[in-house]
């Protein structure tokens, strides 16, 4: 009995291994043939699609089984064409039912199919797809939500901004940084809904909003960020200091100089770094005064920011090399040393 069972197991194993190899070879050759056929269709369609882009001719009509190849070709052109040329391409696809098919695929059962459809709609920059993509922001699959948000950002329709901003409020599973990046890509039109979102109770959302506002660099966000700098939450205040450094301007600079005396080292360190970004020589004396700090990061950021402030910054650093505090002297010497090597390079 034991012997027979072993024999069957051995035979099964070897047969499975051989079957695996055979299936892989067959699968590989089928895939290769399919790719070759597709390449041939694309080569055949290239010329009429080019004529559509360059000469304003209508997009060629293709049979249903060649629609995917046409879509692939159009997507390649979509990254280089804008305006009416792009519209002609997408209208041509819509006439042949490709767009309706993509919208339909947004409801497909496998998540990867829904994500693929969202991705394609985004790449086609179809304004008509905005409501469907906004709806896809509530999809149970994280991949679909991420791709839909990226698609909305690519379309750059202001109507999508509130939905994207709301997406920041989704719990931790959301890919915050990707959404944030998409909002940044939309620029100042994203600022008002983000300012509304600043009133959210969700800490992570507020941190993300502060970061995004910093990256968009619209001065309209300065008062709100200054307000955050005076709040109680340490992380938020440090992020606000960093964001104000990116926005710049006299109000930001004044607040950042004041933040160098904040009781929390994280805020002082971020303020010091941010003042280096603002790069106004007047900040040099404040940074030099803040340099004798107990915290290593504050000293490092003050010294590095001073090195960015041109002649006045370096003059302050020279003075600091004679400071009573050994740590301040070391840091000033180190930064001047590095600056010297880089300048000589």
């Amino acid at each position, binding site marked *: 009995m*034991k*012997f027979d069972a*072993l*024999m069957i*197991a*051995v035979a099964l*194993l*070897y047969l*499975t*291994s051989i079957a*695996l*190899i055979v299936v*892989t070879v067959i*699968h*590989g050759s089928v895939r290769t043939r399919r790719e070759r056929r597709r390449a041939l269709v694309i080569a055949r369609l290239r010329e009429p699609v080019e004529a559509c882009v360059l000469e304003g001719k209508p997009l060629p009509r293709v049979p249903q089984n060649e629609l995917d190849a046409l879509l692939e070709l159009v997507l390649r052109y979509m990254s280089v064409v804008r305006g009416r040329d792009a519209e002609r391409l997408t209208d041509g696809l819509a006439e042949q039912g490709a767009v309706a098919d993509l919208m339909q695929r947004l409801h497909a059962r496998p998540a*990867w199919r829904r*994500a*693929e459809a969202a*991705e394609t709609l985004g790449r086609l920059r179809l304004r008509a797809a905005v409501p469907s993509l906004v709806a896809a922001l509530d999809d149970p699959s*994280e*991949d679909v939500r*991420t*791709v839909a948000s*990226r698609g909305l950002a690519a379309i750059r329709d202001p109507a999508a901004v509130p939905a994207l901003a709301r997406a920041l409020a989704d719990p*931790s*599973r959301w*890919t*915050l*940084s*990707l959404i*944030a*990046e998409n909002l*940044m890509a939309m620029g100042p039109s994203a600022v008002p809904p983000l300012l509304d979102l600043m009133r959210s109770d969700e800490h*992570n959302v507020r941190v993300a909003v502060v*970061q995004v506002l910093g*990256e968009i660099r619209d001065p309209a966000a300065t008062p709100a960020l200054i307000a955050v700098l005076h709040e109680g939450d340490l992380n938020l205040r440090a992020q606000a200091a960093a964001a104000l450094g990116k926005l710049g301007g006299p109000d930001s600079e004044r607040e950042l100089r004041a933040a160098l005396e904040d009781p929390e080292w994280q805020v002082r360190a971020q303020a010091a770094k941010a003042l280096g970004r603002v790069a106004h020589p007047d900040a040099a004396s404040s940074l030099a005064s803040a340099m004798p700090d107990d915290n*290593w990061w504050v000293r490092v950021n003050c010294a590095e920011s001073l090195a960015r402030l041109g002649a006045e910054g370096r003059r302050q650093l020279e003075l600091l090399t004679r400071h009573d505090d050994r740590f301040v002297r*070391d*840091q000033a*010497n*180190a930064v001047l*040393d*590095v600056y010297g*090597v*880089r300048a*000589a*390079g």
Partner: protein
Amino acid sequence: MDSVIRSINDVVLTYFFAINLVYTLLLVISVRESRQHGRRMGFGGYDVILRSPLTLPISVLMPAYNEENTIVQAVQALRLQKYGEFEIVVIDDGSTDSTLSRLVAAFELEKVDRPLRLTLPCSRPHAVYISRHVANLTVVAKENGGKADALNAGVNAARFPLFCAIDADAILERDALLRVVKPFMDRPRETVASSGIVRVVNGCTVRDGTVTEVRAPRNHLAVLQVVEYLRAFLTSRTGWSRIRSLFVISGAFGVFKKEAVLQVGGYRTDTVGEDMDLVLRLHRLYRDRRERYRIVFIPDPVVWTEAPENLRTLRGQRNRWHRGLLECLWASRRMVARPKYGPVGLFGLPYNLLFEAVGPLVEVSGYAILVVSIAMGVVGIQFVVLFFLLAVGYGVFLSVAAVLLDQARAGRYGSRHDLARLLLFTVVENFGYRQLQAFWRAQATVDFLRKKQGWGEMHRIGFESGAQPREQTRTQSANGS
């Protein structure tokens, strides 16, 4: 006597079926995960990671000990990485050859008076160098203290919130950083560490620090290791990662959240398994704190590394790996089978203990008992032959699955001849190589019990095509690099 031998035979048989059941489960999970990952890659968003100002900057740490032949080329290759903001920190771990002077000459390094904050304990750094023309290169020269010690020095010098530890003789693919950082972008708060696949560079064409043509090695021992690496990474680590039990991130390539590594006290310098040890301590830290975290393996970021081409070096490497495993298991013994430590305590560590640590001893004693059983007539020769065929068949099945999974997903080995060669070696490895490995690992267990230290010797042949083949011998200090 007969009944004793029969009982032992039954134990060995049960063990055999249990271990293969685990491998099968891991294979099934890995195939599923690979499929999902492949689809997800299509929506990559790598362009977003590349250009986003929110992408986390990385410090790439490269410990180097007597790497004069490859160090300049390794740094040049790193500079080509497709990634936003990153710095390269080379830690010269007291090399006795011209590693440091070659770096100084090639990159016009200048000694600077930069204070290092020694948050993690490490041997005394005696100089910090920066380059006149490569703004993101820093070289820390320190007394020899071993790889873990050098990495600790590197973490101390690192400026960014993530660090990537790589070997000085490894070649990172140009988009490896971009891909390996994706888990940190997807879930920035939860992700603590991530790693990619280590592939064997022997036989491939390398130009200017980039693998330009992937071929199977001509050296038989190296081909066997290609199969082994594919099996280990694609059908094992992928599976462990999926069930949140990844217990090792290869020392050749891994990205870590610096803050987390600082909290566990950095790399331990008294073990040869510092990479696994660090990962297990990270698991412990987060489980003890009951915080959500992720330590992940993803199969598409690639680092190429040279596999030993002679038995002596391979034996030394495997002896070290197995001692490292045993040291880590000993250090983490309190986590084993404790629900508090989640899947890694309930599955990962018990698997390592029962199958990876004890496995070679069972295998070696199994062969001895088999001989005794045949001699005493307890089992028939037909049964023995069938059982051997079953063991070989299962080994072949797992290896074939790994090679084909790689082929279906990445298709790295384009030539049919190379693929056929790899498939042939999935059979060959079961006749001699597998038994040799078991024997070496059993020996390593004895060495561990005798508290043997050290890394042994690493003989290297350079991998740059067109260059004269060069042989390099690396002999390290007690816990050397």
